């Protein structure tokens, strides 16, 4: 069984974790095209190399980011999501979306 290093709880059996999908940038839902939105929701980049993924340590309810190599399955790095800028998650930050619409 693989070991995953949780930034909060340290190395643990992978069975303690839940996969949360790839870290993707959401296009601005207010202005993107249907196609851009569909690509965000349905399409997954299935290339080789290092990918950023969401992982949850279920017993502590802690979400973090793991950078994993898709060929070797080696987890290069794990860290708290706060280390990523909000722009990594959103093309247009949600707060701005709200203000722009109001």
């Amino acid at each position: 069984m693989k070991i995953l290093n949780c930034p909060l709880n340290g190395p643990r059996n992978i069975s303690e974790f839940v996969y949360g999908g790839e870290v993707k940038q959401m296009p601005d839902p207010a202005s993107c095209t249907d196609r851009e939105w569909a690509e965000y929701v349905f399409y997954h980049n299935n290339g080789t190399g290092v990918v950023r993924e969401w992982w949850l340590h279920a017993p502590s309810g802690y979400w973090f980011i793991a950078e994993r190599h898709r060929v070797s399955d080696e987890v290069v790095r794990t860290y708290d999501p706060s280390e990523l800028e909000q722009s990594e998650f959103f093309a247009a930050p949600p707060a701005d979306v709200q203000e722009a619409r109001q």
Partner: protein
Amino acid sequence: MTDTMVTPGDTLARSGLYRKIADAEFLSTPESAIAASYSADDSEQARNCGLCDLTPVIRTGWRGKTAAEHLQSLGYPVPENPNQALTKDSGETLVRLSRTEFWVLGSLQDMGTAVTEAARQPSPGSDCYPLFCQDSHAWLMLSGDHCAGVMAKLCGVDMRAQSFPPGSVAQTSVARINAIVVHHQVAGTDVFSLLFDAGYHAYLWDVLQDAMAEFSGAPVGVRAFGI
């Protein structure tokens, strides 16, 4: 705490387990009843391998950016890092679960009455939220020389003393349910406190009994810890 014997089904607050441990004698706690003793040599049993339902003992917690400050203002020591625990002289155990989350496990000396007092203090205005751990979680305490041996049959985290010394905390999976395991000491005895979803109270009690059998484990009451 008062020293009166009570019937556990008569109190307003009840541990979900009281029918399973009906052969014990019960003492009253601020709101409920707790198993005091099963037999005369409970304390020897507790030093070897005992299991005690502490769910009726008061506990609380706070989460938020200012939770650590709030804890300090209440006179509690703050563990430096997540997944560490400190025990006050008065018996309360401070458990740090993350950068911003802290639980206070009441002392057996007063069944957590002091924690009740602390919980009444208003939390500072912003970003410090009291937690629901009194009700959301059940509390079982495994005691004695075989804590790590029992846990090795249920849990994939190494809980032997060299890797899980007193003061260690693990948030992990125990017998396929999520649990917080705290290694601390009560009355000089090594104990593992297990805090887990209250719905699994009966389930985990039975699982632990089964795992303890090879070490001659048995339920013990709080009197085993000099209460």
